[in-house]
């Protein structure tokens, strides 16, 4: 049986639907990624699974327990690293760990041992008696993550665990996540807006956009799905690129996604065998000078652009390009029942 089963879960805030009938399964011991821009509904979904928010309809089970009816059972199985740090600045690292450890029901003697071990694991032992308020963001996040591990959870929720960290700490934290997953066989649900992070860590990735799961598969399969079709990823360099050219290209029927990398670079996702000609004609018609065109291997970013019609780093309020590709949904549906 799957460790986590999400069934048609919905969360509404007034008229706004933050999570819109999401369903998926997570296998025991895997790292499952929820990839999407800010405001896509990832955090709301995590909060519901962690029993911090009640679903408007639908439900989910964790380790066989219902998150609504058996929420107290669920809470004994989970650990949470949320977007905001769960740390008291005026308490020392060790005091923070002890406080939460006791609330999480960790036995006194067991706790002493695991605090020593965990602090050592994240190289924070010498800072254990220092108040958290004086720590850097990276140091705080290390303590924050081991706090969630104190009760040896079966399922660990990590909501944007590397947000705002420097590159070096980001790499360390990712290594650490992989390590604890491998050694303890812990199921990890990770949300991120960073493609590389999801690509690196997760077995299965669910692409979340506007409260829905737009696609769900392994990273190689997701990439293959867009290159196998007739999609082309083209990079144009146009020195006199302007908004007129941009809107003309966007309006073309065989263009599925456009993103502007910098003032002269344009990344275009297009379908159809005549896509190349049509785009070049359109740009020329607007007196655009093309100095270089190249096509490249699709990345997860391309997958996201392809599926949702906009980039991850765009805010969620951007208009979605319709219609979405049918064959993608087919791939997703097989898992996202």
């Amino acid at each position, binding site marked *: 049986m799957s460790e986590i089963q999400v069934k048609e879960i919905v969360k509404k805030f007034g008229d706004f639907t933050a999570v819109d009938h999401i369903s998926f399964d997570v296998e025991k011991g895997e790292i499952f990624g929820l990839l999407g821009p800010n405001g896509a509904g990832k955090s709301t979904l995590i909060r519901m699974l962690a029993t911090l928010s009640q679903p408007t309809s639908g439900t989910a089970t964790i380790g066989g327990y219902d998150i609504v009816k058996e929420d107290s059972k669920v809470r*004994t199985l989970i650990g949470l690293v949320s977007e905001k740090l769960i740390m008291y600045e005026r308490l020392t690292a060790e005091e923070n760990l002890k406080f939460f450890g006791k*609330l999480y029901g960790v036995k006194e003697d067991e706790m002493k041992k695991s605090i020593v071990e965990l602090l050592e694991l994240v190289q924070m032992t010498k800072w254990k008696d220092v108040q958290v308020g004086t720590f850097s963001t990276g140091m705080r996040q290390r303590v924050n993550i081991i706090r969630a591990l104190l009760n040896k959870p079966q399922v660990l929720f990590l909501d944007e665990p590397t947000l705002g960290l420097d590159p070096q700490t980001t790499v360390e934290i990712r290594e650490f996540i992989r390590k604890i997953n491998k050694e303890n066989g812990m199921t990890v649900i990770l949300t991120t807006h960073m493609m590389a992070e999801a690509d690196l860590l997760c077995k299965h990735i669910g692409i979340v956009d506007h409260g829905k799961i737009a696609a769900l598969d392994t990273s190689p399969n997701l990439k293959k799905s867009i290159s196998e079709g007739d999609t082309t990823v083209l990079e144009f360099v146009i020195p006199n690129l302007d908004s007129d050219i941009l809107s003309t290209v966007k309006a073309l029927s065989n263009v599925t996604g456009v993103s502007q990398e910098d003032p002269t670079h344009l990344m275009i996702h297009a379908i159809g065998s005549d896509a190349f000609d049509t785009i070049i004609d359109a740009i020329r018609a607007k007196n655009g000078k093309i100095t270089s065109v190249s096509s490249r291997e699709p990345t997860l970013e391309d997958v996201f652009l392809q599926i949702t019609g906009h980039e991850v780093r765009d805010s969620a309020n951007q208009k979605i390009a319709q219609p979405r590709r049918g064959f993608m949904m087919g791939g997703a549906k097989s898992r996202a029942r």
Partner: protein
Amino acid sequence: MAIKLTMYHVYLVARKDLTELFRNRLGLAMLIIMPVFMMGMVGFIFPSGQSLGPVTLAVANMDQAYGLQKGQVATSGLLVNYLNRMDNFTITSASSMDDVRGMIQRGEVEGGIIIPANFTACLNSGRQGTIIVITDQSNPQMSGLLQGAMTAIFHQIGAAFAEQTIKTMIPSIKNPLAVIQPLTVTTQGAVPGHFNYFEFMAPGIMAMNVMMSVMTGLPAAISHEREIGTLDGMMVAPINRLSIILGKTLAQTMRGLLQGTLILIMAVTLFGVTIQGSIPLIFGLLLLDVFSFVGIGIVITSFAKDQETATMMMMTIMFPMMFLSGVFFPTQQMPWYMQDISKLIPLSYATSALRKVVVLGAGIPAISSEIIILATFGIVFTAIAIPLFKRNMTR
């Protein structure tokens, strides 16, 4: 066992909150300074007996003591001597009415007394001797007090003078004072001792501070933790979620009681308040005061999404409570409809009960109605608050 575990979690949360509080030096300093300011402020801005004195007074004795017989001392001289001996006055001599006026204008004295030239002459010829008190109209309060004090003093001196005259006239009389003043008034409080304005203020300030601690502290603490995200850390713990709010309430109660104790100590040591009733009963009442407010605090916590909203909601509710509950002035002075409103505020009962215990030395039977009302407020609001809290925590 479940209850024991919940109590342990309540204790953990409370201890964590108090540790945070004690490590916040500035916050802690304010916690101590606030009641000191409060007490000092209400203590000194309202007039009291002690605030009069020593008053500087110019005395112009212009009495020419006509018709004074040998061996006789002028009554005017006796009056000046009497005033000089009084601790409440610092006497400066002046030569004339204009001189006294000038001194008042220059701010050298706060008032003046003129003994007219014909003072002894009038007395000796069987007429009334008149003394003129000159007041400073720019300070109406001091004028009033001076006028009252002078009237009382001279009334007393006059009576002593008359007593002697009557004794000389009718040697057989036993109690000449009864002839001069057949009626007299003595004021006595319900408990022995001198009444002091602080005795009125201190219990109210205590009740109010404890209320403020819980009412502002609880919603602020919870919404703060919600904002910074640490509340989630407690909410994912496999504990009874009520223990979070109970632990926070306990911490805020301790904070309130600490302030209450400070006020009590200050009232006794600095402001001469005598506690007539039992101290355990006072603390018991303060706890009951907290209980009656906790529910309202939790209701506000449940509704307020952030700290700012919580604080604004608090202020809106708290200010009318402060002024309508009789903390600063008796509710009996208010119009009837306001008195009716004040009856809906638990703080009114807490203040009234504490005042009865501190000032009048009342025991539990004398304040039983207040106790019942406070407990009822507490039970009703808590009953409303807890389901609301549970529901709103998992929005």
